[in-house]
């Protein structure tokens, strides 16, 4: 019995010793020293302390790779090409990468650890992305589930973006959200108002970010965001334009309309904005004001389920019903769509059937 007891004690001590040894070894072996990062064949180079994820390392250097999950490997957005030093592809990356991307050395940067010198390639426009500090200048309800959030940049900073692009809003830790998270929201304001931006946020049941914005955030609070991101913006041409939105999908469309008004772009333009009830429509006064500045703009509001108290005399039905009626053929036309993914898919199907080439249908479908 005594032997058994002593053996157990000895085994426990051995286990504890090995665990301690592993901890000590990790603190030494986990030290990767100075690592040199070369981006786009010398366009930008820096030397940093290794050990962090590539995404966070780049962020520390002021290079923001789009990421909707803040580096937890759950969005698959933070893709970069790694030509050297990335190590083997990890199982946590493979769900996000197609065979062609793997062949092209694309990696998920939040999953790749900087363990040595690296040679990477990123789209040059990502160098323009910055982190901004801002203060909440105003919050107002646009509908019962959509809130407008106006952010004023701190220290006279300015943001340069293409109307239609989005930012990554940083939600700090708060009760119910133990870690900071990032969420993407399109900018609704005009690009020339470079000292502030406006976001439109629909409440999502149980959503960490939307709950924060709708229930916790108040005027005067300081918040951070990075941007601008995205390739949804107005293309330069003389084609007739159809802008189609439902819900908070109106945000980037409003920014595009503001740009057109500011730059006096006189292309024939039709805005189709769909909602369920009259109370779900918003920015009607702002759109009316834009019509005053843009003689070529026609705005069509349509309700899919108007109620008697709405006393609605405008269009009834979905945005696709309106498009079906107003577009006879697709020659010399282009379209910009933003909103619910199923709405965008239905519109793309209809518009291509009408003859608008798919490459002239631009969309941002929250997916």
């Amino acid at each position, binding site marked *: 019995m005594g032997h058994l007891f002593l053996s157990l004690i000895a085994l426990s001590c051995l286990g504890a010793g090995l665990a301690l040894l592993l901890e000590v070894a990790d603190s030494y072996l986990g030290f990767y020293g100075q690592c040199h990062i070369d981006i786009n064949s010398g366009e930008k180079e820096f030397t940093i302390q290794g050990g962090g994820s590539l995404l966070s390392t780049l962020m520390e250097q002021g290079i923001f790779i789009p990421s909707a999950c803040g580096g937890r*490997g759950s969005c*698959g957005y933070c893709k970069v090409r790694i030509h050297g030093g990335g190590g083997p592809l990890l199982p946590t990356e493979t*769900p996000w990468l197609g065979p062609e991307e793997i062949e092209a050395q694309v990696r998920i940067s939040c999953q790749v650890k900087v363990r040595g010198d690296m040679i990477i390639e990123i789209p040059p426009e990502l160098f323009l992305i910055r982190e901004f500090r801002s203060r909440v200048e105003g919050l107002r309800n646009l509908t019962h589930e959509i809130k407008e959030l106006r952010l004023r940049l701190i220290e006279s900073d300015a943001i340069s973006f293409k109307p239609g692009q989005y930012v990554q809003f940083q939600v700090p830790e708060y009760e119910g*959200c133990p870690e900071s998270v990032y969420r993407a929201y399109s900018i609704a304001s005009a690009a020339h108002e470079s000292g502030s931006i406006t976001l439109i946020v629909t409440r*999502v049941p149980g959503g960490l970010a939307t709950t924060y914005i709708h229930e916790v955030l108040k005027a005067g609070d300081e918040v951070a965001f990075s941007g601008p991101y995205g390739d949804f913006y107005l293309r330069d041409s003389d084609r007739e334009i159809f802008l189609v939105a439902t819900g908070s999908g109106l945000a980037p469309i409003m920014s595009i309309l503001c740009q057109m008004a500011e730059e006096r772009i006189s292309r024939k333009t039709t805005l189709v904005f769909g909602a369920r009830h009259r109370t779900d429509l918003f920015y009607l006064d702002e759109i009316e004001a834009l019509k005053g500045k843009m003689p070529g703009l026609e705005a069509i509001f349509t309700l899919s389920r108007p109620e008697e108290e709405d006393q609605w005399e405008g269009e009834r039905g979905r945005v696709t019903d309106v498009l079906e009626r107003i577009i006879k053929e697709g020659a010399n036309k282009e379209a910009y769509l933003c909103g619910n993914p199923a709405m965008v898919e239905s519109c793309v199907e209809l518009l291509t059937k009408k003859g608008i080439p798919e490459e002239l249908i631009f969309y941002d479908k929250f*997916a």
Partner: protein
Amino acid sequence: MRGRPVKQSPELDRVEQNMRPMCLCAEGFLGDDPRRLIEILTEDQGTVNSLGLSHEVIAQRLRGITEEARGGWGDPVVVEEKFEVQVHEARGKIPCPWGHPGLYPKTHVRLKKMETGDGLVWSDLTIHLIEAHGFYQGRGSPYRLDPSTVKRILEL
């Protein structure tokens, strides 16, 4: 009566790790359930068997309702004249914690049985987890679907 403890494989240990909060999603998949993943899987498998159902049948029912409601573009839709169903879709996609290839849209499907007011909540990933892994999530998880409750509400 509890049977003998079931040993969990290292593979399931890894999956269970992926299911913790703030790993693949903020809330995780296990809620406040103290059971190991293998126990959750085993007990729900037993419940599904005793109900005379299969994971495939349950998943197909959820998928059919989701697809019909998706046509509402985010608005509530009445399905089979019995259920009011609303599909919210948020930006981004989420992977399977088992590491299967493919990504699932961040959907939030809310069903209310109009006659009784009973409700269910699920996502596209929920359907995959049931169909491919027989996983109905841990107790307390926002997307936990108890097989008995699903059978009763969806009249399977």
